[in-house]
């Protein structure tokens, strides 16, 4: 064990939790103070049944299912000594009524009985009550088979009903709460788990109760209905089949589903997921993905996931997928060919290009793919580029959060700085976990030019103009240590406010500090100086090289960190790089589709007969249409691999469905090209690729598939047999992943340069800045029809003042003149947008890499 790790163990042991010992069903158990009885019982495997209680939410005690007998020791009022029975045991006083196990907190010497006749009867009676108005349509209910009401009725319920069937209360059975979630009001047992989740956990109180008594019903009051990025989670925690997703409606019975572990690659959080599949006659007997469920990983996503991750998997089984390699023939058309022919041609052309090879890989690829691709490029001496506009991967490798970090550990006494990020849009789970940390008492400093959803939780809010991201962080640093050299005007200006000074004080006094930077309004250059500034702040305050301290980059793609670690760097001028290429190898990226100027560059490559373009893709993208060779590949649900998330946790995803016949994984394709270039790369088993990575990339030396697949006991305890908690299983049997050690934790002192601080760019007119929206129009999102109405339209966002000046009505169509192109877009007007700026959402049809002057015409 290294010294750093030892320290960390000591630190964790320090705040000793006070343990309370009590007896539940004659078994003694010691649990931390403040634990409720249901949880304490769970620790020793005693099941106290619940409906409304959920360990991730505040107890309300309304379903009355958890009634138990609770007794407390009697104390002599005069002496304070416990009163003893004749046999010397302490005298226990039981309450006159049964207590709810979910609201009563443990106390020393308490005796809890869940087996007495009174309790058994109470459970039977509560279930009988619940079932009086339940439609009992289990045979067609999507929850049937994983339903707590079903399970608990079988276990504790009465065998028969005394309620007259004809007197049943009837309610609407098919109420769409928006187009994503359906409500069945007859099945609802009014446990309020969904409304409390939306309110307490994710702060989107868009559903609630209306009416009272037997007519109490869930309603939505947002437009569109149930407008939340988290709505799918309510269907998981619903203890009956009242809330179901449109995606899974009547899709399959739960027991027919096969489960495979996976990792979401839509954002850098890397939520652990379970892919449920079933063979389907409608799809010609193929195995198809029926639903995506969260898988418990208390380091990453706990038991939640966002709706994008849950629903945007349909691209993997899209009809549009490429199924065979294609080569451009004499007449200039793409023609199907054999792998042999295609790969031979590619290898030949690459060899000819030699160091003129430019590789551009997108970061939705796995580490194995990226490694092999990088190796091929390196062998020839070419340029290995990744498709990102965010810099700082090396910095995260150096001063990223330490091994053993968990955002759930942050709380009172700790500080979190979030810069240039609309966190819920960029990485929803990070937003959730930072919000929770702030609720636990961590000091939250949010620096952003406009209000975001995180603002309401911020202790200190710092405002700066777009372009001054690094300056804002340097202003904070300047207030902590005045030795900062080379202060720019922007830093001086931003240092003046009291808020900055207070925030700086809070940061300097924090026990732990985590800094997250995003990509709100930043291009590659500003991102680099922002990352530098954040690293400066962390090093100057000594918050590096330890668990729960360090830098997190909220990357724009799922595996950007992995791409950096594998040695792929972003291009400062992609168009120029592509133009200079003798051969271009584009993998999982679509520069031509993203950006008109890049499309020109690619066209130039294509038109030049000397030059050669290979596109390795899932779909026939704009770039692929221009390619000389198109190589089809497998989606991540069809193969194995690993992703490295923004906290540098490396995690395995497993195949869930078989791949199309003639399609291979990216790493295998790259290895096959390598073979023809006399380079030996692993091409069959991803674990072997990882072994090679471990040999080559020093940070990954400890990483192996075996270790990543290890699981640990997690709290709350969840298992597939669980009736306690929710039926729908989140159980994680396939591994927690492995967090990498940043260089600073290994004892290396980070090599840092002071951040190049730029002032805000000055323009006469409006300045367009790129921002991120969760529901963008990327090629992995659009194939999900369910989300189609919620996707961000091709649009720009203006401040009300600017809109008035330009006399633009809300949602009117406008012409956007940007970087020499003209696009029609919808004009949205939002109050928080600073005047003089136009927000341009990324990946919705307007290309913008860094802040640029823009002209908007009504």
């Amino acid at each position: 064990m290294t010294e750093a790790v030892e320290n960390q163990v000591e630190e964790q042991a320090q705040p000793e939790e006070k343990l309370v010992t009590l007896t539940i069903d004659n078994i003694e158990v010691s649990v931390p103070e403040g634990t409720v009885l249901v949880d304490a019982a769970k620790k020793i495997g005693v099941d106290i049944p619940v409906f409304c209680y959920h360990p991730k939410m505040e107890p309300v005690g309304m379903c009355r299912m958890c009634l138990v007998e609770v007794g407390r020791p009697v104390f002599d009022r005069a002496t304070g000594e416990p009163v003893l029975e004749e046999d010397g045991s302490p005298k226990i006083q039981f309450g006159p009524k049964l207590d709810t196990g979910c609201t009563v907190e443990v106390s020393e010497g308490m005796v809890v009985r869940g087996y007495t006749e009174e309790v058994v009867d109470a459970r039977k009676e509560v279930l009988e009550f619940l079932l009086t108005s339940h439609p009992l349509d289990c045979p067609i209910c999507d929850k049937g088979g994983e339903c707590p009401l079903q399970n608990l009725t079988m276990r504790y319920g009465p065998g028969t009903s005394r309620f007259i069937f004809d007197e049943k209360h009837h309610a609407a059975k098919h109420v769409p709460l928006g187009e994503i979630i359906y409500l069945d009001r007859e099945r609802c047992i009014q446990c309020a788990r969904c409304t409390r989740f939306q309110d307490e956990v994710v702060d989107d109180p868009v559903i609630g109760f209306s009416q009272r008594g037997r007519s109490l019903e869930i309603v939505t009051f947002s437009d569109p209905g149930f407008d939340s990025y988290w709505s799918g989670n309510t269907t998981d925690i619903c203890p009956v089949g009242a809330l179901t997703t449109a995606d899974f409606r009547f899709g399959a019975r739960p027991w027919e589903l096969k489960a495979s572990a996976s990792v979401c690659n839509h954002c850098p959080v890397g939520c652990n997921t379970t892919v449920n599949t079933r063979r389907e006659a409608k799809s010609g007997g193929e195995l198809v993905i029926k639903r995506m469920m969260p898988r418990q990983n208390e380091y990453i996503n706990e038991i939640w996931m966002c709706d994008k991750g849950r629903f945007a998997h349909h691209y993997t089984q899209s009809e549009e997928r490429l199924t065979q390699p294609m080569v451009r023939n004499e007449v200039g058309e793409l023609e199907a060919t054999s792998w042999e022919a295609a790969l031979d041609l590619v290898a030949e052309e690459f060899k000819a290009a030699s160091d003129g090879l430019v590789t551009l890989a997108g970061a939705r690829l796995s580490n194995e793919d990226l490694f092999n691709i990088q190796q091929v490029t390196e062998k020839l001496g070419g340029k290995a580029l990744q498709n990102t506009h965010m810099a700082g991967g090396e910095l995260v490798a150096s001063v990223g959060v330490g091994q053993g970090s968990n955002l759930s550990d942050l709380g009172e006494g700790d500080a979190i700085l979030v810069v240039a990020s609309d966190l819920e849009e960029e990485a929803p789970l990070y937003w959730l976990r930072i919000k929770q940390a702030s609720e636990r008492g961590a000091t939250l400093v949010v620096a952003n030019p406009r209000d975001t959803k995180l603002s309401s939780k911020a202790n200190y809010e710092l405002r700066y103009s777009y372009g001054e991201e690094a300056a804002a962080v340097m202003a904070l640093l300047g207030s902590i240590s005045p030795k900062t050299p080379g202060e720019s005007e922007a830093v001086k200006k931003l240092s003046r406010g009291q808020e900055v000074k207070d925030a700086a004080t809070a940061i300097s006094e924090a026990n732990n500090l985590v800094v997250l930077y995003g990509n709100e309004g930043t291009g590659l250059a500003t991102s680099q100086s922002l990352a530098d500034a954040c690293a400066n702040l962390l090093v100057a305050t000594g918050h590096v090289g330890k668990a729960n301290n360090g830098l997190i980059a909220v990357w724009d793609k799922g595996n950007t960190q992995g791409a950096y670690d594998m040695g792929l760097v972003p291009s400062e001028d992609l168009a120029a790089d592509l133009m200079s290429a003798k051969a271009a190898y584009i993998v999982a990226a679509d520069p031509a589709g993203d950006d008109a100027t890049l499309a020109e560059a690619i066209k130039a490559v294509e038109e030049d007969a000397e030059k050669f373009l290979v596109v390795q893709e899932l779909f026939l993208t704009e770039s692929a249409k221009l390619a000389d060779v198109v190589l089809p590949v497998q989606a991540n649900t069809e193969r194995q691999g690993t992703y490295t998330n923004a906290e540098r946790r490396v995690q395995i995803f497993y195949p869930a469905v078989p791949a199309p016949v003639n399609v291979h994984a990216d790493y295998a394709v790259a290895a096959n090209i390598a073979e023809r270039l006399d380079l030996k790369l692993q091409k069959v088993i991803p674990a072997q690729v990882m072994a090679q990575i471990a040999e080559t990339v020093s940070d990954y030396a400890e990483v192996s598939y075996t270790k990543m697949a290890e699981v640990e006991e997690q709290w709350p305890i969840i298992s597939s047999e669980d009736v306690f908690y929710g039926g729908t299983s989140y159980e994680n049997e396939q591994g927690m992943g492995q967090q990498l050690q940043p260089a600073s934790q290994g004892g290396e002192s980070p090599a840092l340069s002071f951040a190049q601080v730029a002032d805000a760019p000055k323009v006469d007119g409006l300045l367009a800045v790129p921002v991120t929206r969760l529901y963008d129009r990327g090629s992995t999102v659009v194939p999900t029809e369910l989300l189609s109405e919620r996707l961000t339209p091709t649009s720009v966002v203006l401040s009300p003042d600017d809109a008035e000046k330009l006399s633009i009505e809300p949602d009117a169509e406008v012409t956007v003149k940007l970087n020499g192109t003209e696009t029609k877009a919808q004009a949205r007007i939002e109050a928080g947008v600073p005047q003089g700026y136009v927000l341009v959402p990324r990946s919705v049809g307007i290309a913008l890499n860094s802040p640029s002057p823009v002209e908007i015409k009504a």
Partner: protein
Amino acid sequence: MNLYNPLKVVPPLVTGLWTTFKSTLKKPVTIQYPEVKRPVRERYKGRHELKRYDNGLEKCIGCALCAAACPADAIFVEASENIDEKRFSPGERYASTYEINMLRCIFCGYCEDACPTEAIVLGDNYELSFTDRSQAIYTREMLLDPVPAGGEPTPREVEPGSFDRSIPEMKDPA
């Protein structure tokens, strides 16, 4: 034994012929299958039938409990949602695919027991023969009973809102 002693030869012969004679007068136990078919017992478990209500709507709601109960994994069910323009069964969903692999089926009747709407019933048809494996898979169309007299075929168009229960009550629904 003396084979030439008629006293010892004739009586057994006569006994035998008498037995033969007696049998010619009896009703034959064999039948002229396939021209004639033997009736089966009331509880005979033959080929499955998917039942309909008197009005022609299908009883099956596609719950797949039969498939879950099947010890031979012979049943495959896939459900879809009923819409008023195209209604198969009175509830919210119906079986859009219903297949039984008769080569696997062991005619145990568990599917019958599991069915919450009495939609699948093992009938009295024992004439199951096929010339290849794929023929052994009986589809929904093959298993469904014909539409009873006075009923309408499925799918049919119905008045919107005339079916609002997720599971039909176990009588002939509207």
